């Protein structure tokens, strides 16, 4: 737990879903019997219907993945989403983690828009501010392009 320049305490917006620190990662459960990964973590039973295991290891998911698809939020989503005023649109990406063979949704870091993204691009997980209140800055995972700015033209969506 760290503190911001303005004296706010940084806390995760949700507990136990990701690590913070230098190389942040999503946390998942892995079934001890069949190896299936489960994100968000904390299942009490395995989602593989042919597996009746209830024992899981806590693991970190790979920090890099490929964009499966992406979009943006041009209008402010309704609560419980909380946004700073004035509202700034942001991009959202669904990212495929190759080793774990699953796709995870997340916001894309602030200054990256749809024009900067393409399906298949490599992205990396970072931890960033989701929203703030008087005393806290709430953190969430976000996706950040590994090589930005090189791929922002020629999209079909112009």
């Amino acid at each position, binding site marked *: 737990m760290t503190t911001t320049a303005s004296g706010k305490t940084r806390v995760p*917006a*949700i507990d136990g879903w990701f690590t913070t620190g230098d190389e942040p990662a999503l946390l998942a459960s892995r*079934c001890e019997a*069949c*190896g*299936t*990964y*489960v*994100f*968000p973590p904390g299942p009490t039973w395995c*989602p*593989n*219907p*042919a*597996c009746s295991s209830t024992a899981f290891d806590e693991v970190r998911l790979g920090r890099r993945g490929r964009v*499966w*698809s*992406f*979009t*943006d*939020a*041009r*209008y402010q*989503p*309704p*609560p*419980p*989403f909380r*946004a700073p005023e004035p509202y700034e649109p*942001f991009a*959202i990406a*669904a990212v495929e983690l190759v080793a*774990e*063979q*699953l*796709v*995870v*949704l*997340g*916001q894309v870091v602030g200054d990256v828009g*749809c024009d900067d993204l*393409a*399906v*298949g691009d490599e992205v990396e997980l970072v931890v960033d501010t*989701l929203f703030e209140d008087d005393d806290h800055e709430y953190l*969430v995972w976000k996706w950040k392009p590994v090589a930005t700015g090189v791929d922002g033209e020629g999209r*079909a*969506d*112009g």
Partner: protein
Amino acid sequence: MGDDGRRVAVLGAGMHPWGKWGRNFVEYGVKAANDALAEAGLAWTDVQFVAGADTIRNGYPGYVAGATFAQALGWNGTRVSSSYAACASGAQAIDSARTQILAGRCDVALVVGADTTPKGFFAPVGGERKADPDWLRFYLVGATNPTYFALYARRRMACYGATDADFAAVKVKNARHGAANPNARYRTPVTAEEVLASPMVADPLRLLEICATSDGGAALVLTSLEFARRHGHAEPVTVEAVSTVTPTFPQGRLEMPDLATDSAVAVPSGRRRFTAAVVQAAYDEAGVGPDDVDVAEVYDLSSALELDWYEDLGLCKEGEAERLLTDGDTTVGGRVPVNPSGGLSCFGEAIPAQAIAQVCELTWQLRGAAAGRQVEGARLGVTANQGLFGHGSSVVLRR
């Protein structure tokens, strides 16, 4: 044609026009029910079972839609069911009524769904609900319904070369169809230019390409085939299949409201989309295939999603939906018209009523009673939809 014991008749269909009326949903449902009963030539007192499709945004009466409509029509001692399955709620209610008839537990069932909707994006249930995926997707990502629709649209662009023009063309087609439908909310044709000039909501989807939320109601009177024949309906429209299957692990496509897919490390992902499996189960039950389909009503929550459905219905191979559309095959007058009603594009979604409304439209189409949007000579129709939490449905109707 299958075994008569596996089929039920659709003797009546009724709707309350879609719109933003702001009245009690019960009123819409009762209007639709009375219209369906009138079309069937039956009285409320003939009904033995009421299957309600629930609305979760109208307080307790919405949770017990079957009882609410039964009470509104006048307590009659019928049995009731109240079903919820997100966008597939109406199909679950049809399934409930149909199964009661197939099991011989009643001859005449009434299916009703109606909704009164708030403005803007659908928001999740209130409070702090960190165990509810539908709450979490808004809280942690700000992922609305259009977010998911847009992810699928972008994926089509990347995989199959779909363009903004293709998506707009879906909207133009459906707006033209719906202009002739008295129950549709939006009845003004639009041009591709108007679509492409409307504000971007969730890149690449624009305002005119995303389904609104509407008030509306729809109802059906279902009976055993024997009852129908005894009452002078020699060749009624029949329900040949209702599919409400859930996904198969691992679910590899990111589905609303999940923040992640299943992992495929232990069990490999299937090749086809879940939505294709929903339709396939309906085809299998009805003993038909894509070539038998004359007309389809599909869930165009976005313009782009309609293209996915062409493939899921087997009307074309994956990646060829754009061509099917631009060739005019899915327009009324084409080879296999899709959404002759105007679809969600012209209705906006009244969740519990929508899957029932799809069946109303096909009933009228198969009877040749869809004035201004009739698919000539249609004998077999199929509906398809998908909702949150692994719900989907497909209904096959024949005359």
